[in-house]
């Protein structure tokens, strides 16, 4: 189906269903309950899940297949964002042209950076990409302020009047898709539950599904095989008379376009760009997302992205007040004790929790979150076949334990 084998099609179908039902799945706890804090089914975070999912899927096409570790991918995301917001400020508030521009500019910048950086391999390549990204960040923050808005970044202002949109005088334009605003939502109340269906999220999700589908096709194509060959032994490949550069460059540009798409979508969902989007920590984040989820797996990067964004947005918002509410039913002494114990890991301590999760995952799940999923599937698996698979994975991970 769609040029996919049965297993891949199933995977795509599962991802599509999950994306479609995300507003339900991410809001498992009723409003007003203590656990509602853990609900992630609000537009901003759902949008971020799929956008960073796209970013990580694209990164994985480069890193997972060719083994080239780019440490500057945030630059393409940033360039895409700037392209998109200028498109909206000057031409039209419709998101489609903005997103297309973001993809084009992300790809073009990737072409330039890739053309130079791919002359080197291994860590030399990583540092070259890092250097380009850091230069982009530093310049965008300072001397390029007239174009990038510098520290305060760019937003759509009342004074902006895109040529293709009719705005009333003084009206601040909003990103839309043929008149449908990204922020508009349909709310559904079921008992104590409240589910939010956000237009922007579904548009982003459609882009994510397309990206995911393209990524599967690339993984299974002869081109993908060629990229894997680069990873396993580039020298041998060169000896056979094949020049691997065009292949790696193509992979680099594709993943740059994915990053540009993610940047464009970020602007479409939330019309704002700031230069710190290109800082090395942002590049590092997508590396961590991919590794955390599982390098070279199809779904892993999306899981990794979701995990990191979830921690960043949910754990950081838990404060002592909320802890006291959770444990209010306990005797005062125990309540205070529990709050004291948990306090360092929540709110301002969310980084600590994130660091611990990184370490635990990499120590106990060498294949990333995907392996965790496989193991769970193994436990609940049907019959001996699943067991055998699980044992295989265990055997592969012995050294880490």
């Amino acid at each position, binding site marked *: 189906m769609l040029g996919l084998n049965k297993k891949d099609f199933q995977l795509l179908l599962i991802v599509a269903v999950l994306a479609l039902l995300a507003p339900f799945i991410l809001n498992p706890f009723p409003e007003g309950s203590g656990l509602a804090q853990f609900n992630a089914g609000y537009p901003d975070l759902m949008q971020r899940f799929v956008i960073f999912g796209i970013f990580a899927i694209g990164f994985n096409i480069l890193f997972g297949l060719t083994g080239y570790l780019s440490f500057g991918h945030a630059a393409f995301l940033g360039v895409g964002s700037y392209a998109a917001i200028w498109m909206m400020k000057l031409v039209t508030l419709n998101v489609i042209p903005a997103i297309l521009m973001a993809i084009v500019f992300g790809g073009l910048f990737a072409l330039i950076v890739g053309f130079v950086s791919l002359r080197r391999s291994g860590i030399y390549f990583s540092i070259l990409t890092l250097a380009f990204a850091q230069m982009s960040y530093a310049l965008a923050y300072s001397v390029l302020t007239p174009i990038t808005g510098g520290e*305060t970044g760019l937003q759509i*202002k009342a004074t902006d009047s895109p040529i293709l949109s009719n705005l009333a005088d003084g009206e601040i334009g909003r990103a839309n898709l043929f008149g449908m605003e990204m922020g508009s939502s349909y709310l559904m109340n079921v008992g104590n539950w409240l589910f939010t269906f956000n237009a922007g999220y579904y548009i982003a999700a459609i882009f994510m599904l397309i990206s995911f589908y393209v990524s599967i096709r690339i993984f299974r194509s002869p081109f993908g095989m060629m990229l894997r060959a680069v990873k396993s032994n580039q020298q041998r490949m060169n000896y056979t008379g094949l020049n691997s550069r065009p292949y790696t460059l193509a992979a680099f540009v594709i993943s740059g376009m994915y990053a540009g798409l993610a940047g464009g979508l970020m602007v479409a969902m939330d019309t704002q760009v700031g230069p710190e989007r290109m800082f090395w920590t942002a590049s590092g984040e997508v590396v961590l997302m991919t590794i955390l989820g599982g390098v070279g797996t199809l779904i892993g990067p999306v899981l990794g992205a979701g995990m990191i964004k979830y921690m960043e947005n949910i754990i950081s918002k838990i404060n002592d007040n909320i802890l006291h509410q959770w444990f209010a039913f306990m005797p005062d002494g125990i309540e205070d004790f529990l709050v004291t114990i948990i306090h360092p890991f929540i709110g301002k301590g969310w980084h600590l929790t994130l660091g611990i999760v990184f370490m635990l995952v990499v120590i106990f799940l060498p294949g990333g979150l995907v392996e965790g999923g496989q193991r769970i599937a193994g436990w609940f698996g049907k019959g001996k076949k699943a067991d055998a698979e699980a044992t295989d994975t265990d055997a592969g991970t012995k050294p880490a334990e």
Partner: protein
Amino acid sequence: MSKSKLTRRGVLKTGAYAGAAGLATPIIFDGSVWADGHSGFTNAPTGDTVTLGFNVPQSGPYADEGADELRAYELAVEHLNGGGDGGMIPTFSSKTLDGTGINGKKVEYVTGDTQTKSDAARASARSMIEKDGAIMITGGSSSGVAVAVQALCQEAGIIFMAGLTHSNDTTGKDRKANGFRHFFNSYMSGAALAPVLANAYGKDRKAYHLTADYNWGYTTEEAVVQATEGMGWETVNAVKTPLTQTDFSSYIAPVLQSGADVLVLNHYGGNMVNSLTNAVQFGLRDKEVNGKNFEIVVPLYSRLMARGAGANVKGIFGSTNWHWSLQDEGSKAFVKSFGTKYGFPPSQAAHTVYCQTLLYADAVNRAGSFNPCAVAEALEGFEFDGLGNGKTLYRAEDHQCFKDVLVVKGKENPTSEFDLLEIVEVTPVDQVMYAPDHPQMGGAEATLGECNPGA
């Protein structure tokens, strides 16, 4: 601990009807709706509680400043709900706050981490608006974040009460109808500092500027250069330094060769601690140039950060929004209340966010509605007193507070780790006043736009 209900469900029930009626049709309100308007704007509170969003840096270099802001917010909520000693509520000139929350609704709050990054700050603010039903967002410790979140609140139809943000842009070229700033700005720093500097160091001085290479740095440099040149100073050079710079030696070392006799450090936070430490290391303060003692000036002081520079701040002039050693009734009440609860005096960031929370609550009470447009109208042109800084005006044209500005100096003999600055002069508000279309503030083009109540 009493178990309290989150408000969002009730809030969004109203939204659900709107949603069912069709995909978010923007509804335009006129003023008459406000009088009895308790719905029809973003996150209109329907239950007996109201939720405020405290969006402060909890990680990154400004985490301590954010923590202090959070303490002040918690204190403000306590006072609004009738707890504690009431802090500045009794000294506040407007008397609508009576300890029954805001507009009779008990105040609750949610917190988030801006990480001092505009993306993270907006994500956190959006989650407060979309998930927690916050009716007002406040906080922040940098101008980049303030401008980004202010623009978001404008779009979403939420009031934004800025925390610590000093760049002219926040209420200058990036001003917004839904955003309000209590903190002072670069222009005011320059205007307040220049006369004091001319007095202390003479009118015949040559200044060398080191400026953080981003928006806030630019506006501060511009303000200080204009103000000091107006006093007769000459600007020898102005060099931009990268935000990520940690060692400023290569910028400081050439200063002596330039013939300048004053060094102005347009740096904030970690940059300021490092550049000041480096400047003192290079012995600049022990030198005599042009027959005068070499001097260093730091336009914007943050006491919390200045601690990091240790003894290097002694005798160095700067400006600050507020300081705990002020002796007016409001400041004394706030210091007592904060100090009793936490054991140390509040920072200027804590003071400004505490004031912002009270000002918001009072504006809602006076307007009789949480509708952002009603609140904005109540704040515009509002004159008040008793929150420290003397008589203050929330100017209608740009939503900037105008009040006395403090010129301070690093204290020579501090008695404690908090006792770093001494107030040299309280510059009266008239001296730091400027026209709303001042060129440094974005000129005639800068506009607030229309207030947005959301839908």
